[in-house]
């Protein structure tokens, strides 16, 4: 049994015009998504803005009520404000400037979960806070500081310490390093990896940055317009992608190889309120055929452990010979 089981998860938002409540449409931010995460594993979730990856992350820890489907953690589908759920699964947010309460000292921010769940006796709270701060690489004397006195990297460490306080088995990291400068970003990524090897925490690691996801994840899931279009072991997804969207995304990522990339994906993602018929990627897909506009391809296991939602996943698209395809250069 996996630590996290997500089955057919959906989240729909009502999109309404102003005035006399005239409903305009439904935005299917997450549309029937299923995946598992094992204990101590990192699943990277990658996609562009508006693909639903953050919504999915928040639905997993029940900060958003799913519209359909099941989320089981440790085999149990919890109610949203069940304290047991809160001790199993935590979340780290993107923006280090809004994810900490501005008027609360750092020590108390980290002590809050300890007190709420009575994890340690009141007399031991400050010792435990100090230990958590050391765990995430913060000097203990920062406990008296307010968030605005800290740098972005330090704030992100506080957010991680707060999540660690409940001794969770799963942490959703929602673009946890995207707001940081490159030189600080690597520190936080390594911290998250160290914590995983020390405490066996599983991560759902959400990012728009394929390089970061590749570095952090055992497996990678690629999302497009509310669905997972590809899911597989990281090295395989990056080197031998099955879905044309993944291929295009990889080709778009700037690499340190000089010379310009070939742009494979044209135009921009469609309006999610009014998604295309069939495969939602077909209007931008370089290999789309008639069938793609009619039938939505299911997520299929084409190779062992490597899934893709494409009618032509195994076709050779002439990609392998391309010099600029990062899959060929390692």
């Amino acid at each position, binding site marked *: 049994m996996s630590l996290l089981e997500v089955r057919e998860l959906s989240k729909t938002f009502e999109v309404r015009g102003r005035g006399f409540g005239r409903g305009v449409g439904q935005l299917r931010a997450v549309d029937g998504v299923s995946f598992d995460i094992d204990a101590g594993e990192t699943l990277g979730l990658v996609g*562009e803005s508006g693909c639903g990856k953050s919504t999915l992350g*928040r639905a997993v820890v029940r900060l958003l009520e799913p519209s359909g489907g099941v989320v089981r953690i440790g085999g149990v589908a919890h109610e949203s*404000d069940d304290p047991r759920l*809160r*001790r199993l*699964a*935590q*979340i780290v*947010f993107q923006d280090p400037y*809004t*994810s*900490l*309460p*501005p*008027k*609360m000292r750092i020590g108390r921010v980290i002590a*809050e*979960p300890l007190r*709420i*769940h009575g994890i340690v006796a009141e007399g031991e709270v400050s010792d435990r806070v100090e230990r958590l701060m050391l765990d995430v690489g913060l000097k203990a004397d920062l406990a008296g500081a*307010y968030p*605005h006195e800290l*740098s972005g990297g*330090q704030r992100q460490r506080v*957010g991680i310490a*707060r999540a660690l*306080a*409940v001794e969770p088995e799963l942490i959703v990291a929602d673009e946890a390093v995207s707001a940081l*400068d*490159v*030189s600080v*970003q*690597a520190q936080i*990524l390594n911290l998250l990896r160290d914590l995983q090897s020390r405490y066996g925490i599983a991560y759902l690691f959400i990012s*728009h940055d*394929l*390089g970061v996801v*590749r*570095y*952090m994840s055992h497996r990678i899931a690629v999302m497009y317009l509310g669905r997972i279009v590809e899911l597989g072991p*990281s*090295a395989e997804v*990056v080197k031998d992608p099955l879905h044309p969207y993944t291929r295009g995304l*990889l*080709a*778009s*990522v*700037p*690499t*340190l*190889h*000089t010379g*310009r*990339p070939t*742009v494979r*994906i044209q135009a*921009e993602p469609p309006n999610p309120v009014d998604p295309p018929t069939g495969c939602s990627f077909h209007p931008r897909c370089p290999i789309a055929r008639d069938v793609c506009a009619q039938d939505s391809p299911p997520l299929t296991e084409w190779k062992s452990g490597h899934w893709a939602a494409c009618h032509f996943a195994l076709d050779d698209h002439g990609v392998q010979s391309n010099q600029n395809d*990062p899959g060929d*250069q*390692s």
Partner: protein
Amino acid sequence: MTDVLGQLESAPAGSPRPVGWRMLAASPLTMVGLLGVIGILVAALFAPALAPADPGAQDLTNILAPPFWDEDGSSAALLGTDGLGRDVLSRLLYGARNSLVISVAAMLLGASVGLATGLFAGFFGGRVDSVIMRLGDVQLAFPFILLAIAVLGVVPNRSAWHLIIVLGIPGWIIYARVVRSRVLAEKEKDYVAAARAIGASKWRRLFRYVVPSVWQVVPVIALLDVGFLIIMESTLSFLGLGLPPPAATWGGILAEGRRNMVVSTWLPILPGLAIVATVLSINLLGDGIASVFDTNVVRGGFRRIIPKGAGQPALQPADQALLDVRDLGVTFPTRAGSIRAITGVSFDMAHGETLGVVGESGSGKSVTGSAIIQLIDPPGRISSGEIWVEGEDVTRVNDRRMRQLRGRSIGMIFQNPAASLNPVLSVGYQLREGLRSVGVPRREVVSTVRRILTTVGIPDPDRVVRQYPFQLSGGMNQRVMIAMALAARPQLLIADEPTTALDTTTQAQILTELVELTDQQDISLLLITHDIALVSEYADRVLVLYAGKVCEIGPVESVISSPAHPYTKALLESVPRVDATGDRLEPIPGELPDPSIVRTGCPFAPRCRDVMELCHSVDPMLTAIEQGHHAACHLWSEVEVVGS
């Protein structure tokens, strides 16, 4: 006071700066306000002790006595007497007491109703919220003062309570709106979501997390509200609708005094001065406190500071370079002292080449771009150096010439494309305006617009020109910006993080198009970015900045494959690459430097792996490593600097 409220509604959550006496004391006007408020409080609280006479005691033998400074005045009645021989000073003191009691009570009434409804509506939202806010709309669409006047006129046995209710109740909406909008903004923030994730209950989230970030604005509103209520209370008293006589009120004293104003000019003047002084003090104090919350630095203004020696013929000998930046320094004066954004930055660009400028926050990469087109955000200014563009030093040319250079010689595109287009003007208008200003004949404008939009990859230009920026995607808006910048065929295009706000696939499309277009038209491109990988793909040469100084400059191939500066090296090693194996990253230890702290030596020294004793004291100079490849690092210094 609504303008202050607007600021409070939109002020960033829980301002980073706490309200401290020191900050208030820093502004003399606020101190004046504070002293005034203390004075009026003393007068109101101790009126019975301070007043020389009973405010109601009439003395018909001594009516309309002049104040002491008048030659007929006496010290018995310092401010003279009114038409019934009552002591004016005593009546003013009691007037302060009455006015303040009623205004403060009315404020408390309005504030408590408003705070409760605002918190409730904001946090729980839904139907309760919409009902409360509709009520507020009706209230705002209604002249309550007029109704108040009518009510006080018809109510039998008018008392202080009637005044308090009539003045206080309409005020709830001010508190409710501000508190609600702050609560709405706060509760959507991640720290409240985080509180939920760690298991904090709804009430704990409201009172431990949201309220502490919101309540700080309330004293300011309350203070300004009291000032406003004092004016309203005295207005009602003046109209004969305030506290019934013989109670002393400022408005009442004034109304009585008005009857004798030809004889005794001071009678109507004095209570008015009391009101002005009181309300002015309150407002000064309120504004002072509000400005502490307001974290927005006053920017704005069109001022461009030209260094001394302007007006000299700004010419240099003919040269190969299109752009030649020499020893450029930009500083931002602040109260705490000047912050040096960049120091001693020098580089040049040839015609048609693409130079990538790479750096993290605070590296000065954007300031460098803004300095070249002479649009540094105020209060920043060029403190040293020269910027030669096609043989003209743009730091010294006059404003008129600079305007001609902008657009035609130097173009610029920005990070946030939607914010860089005017939200209330259509895309077509802005395109046509730009074309007209660079001299495209009127009858060719429409066709030119269509042509340039097609060039930048916009499939349906005729639809796009009719739309407003908010109706277009980020990628479309950036294409429009590029079209606008290229339309004037500049020699140099500065692109400041042009794709940072965009998705990866859009970024690749737009940069590829941009680089192709600048290549075709032989335009030099200054590509400013935090992403060294981006530069490696699109640029010919790269300039690496750290903490406002040049670390390294050279051809992309050699900088990427054999970086000379430890910072460049470390930067390359700390970027997780999609095409790399899972080897552990080597992060750069420590934090980015604080720009307000001036330190000697190499700015990277505290984080550097190869740091030497020398690095902490001596700033390294740019040294040539090979042809066209320079680095500012003591590892490459050929001459040992001794004894400095």
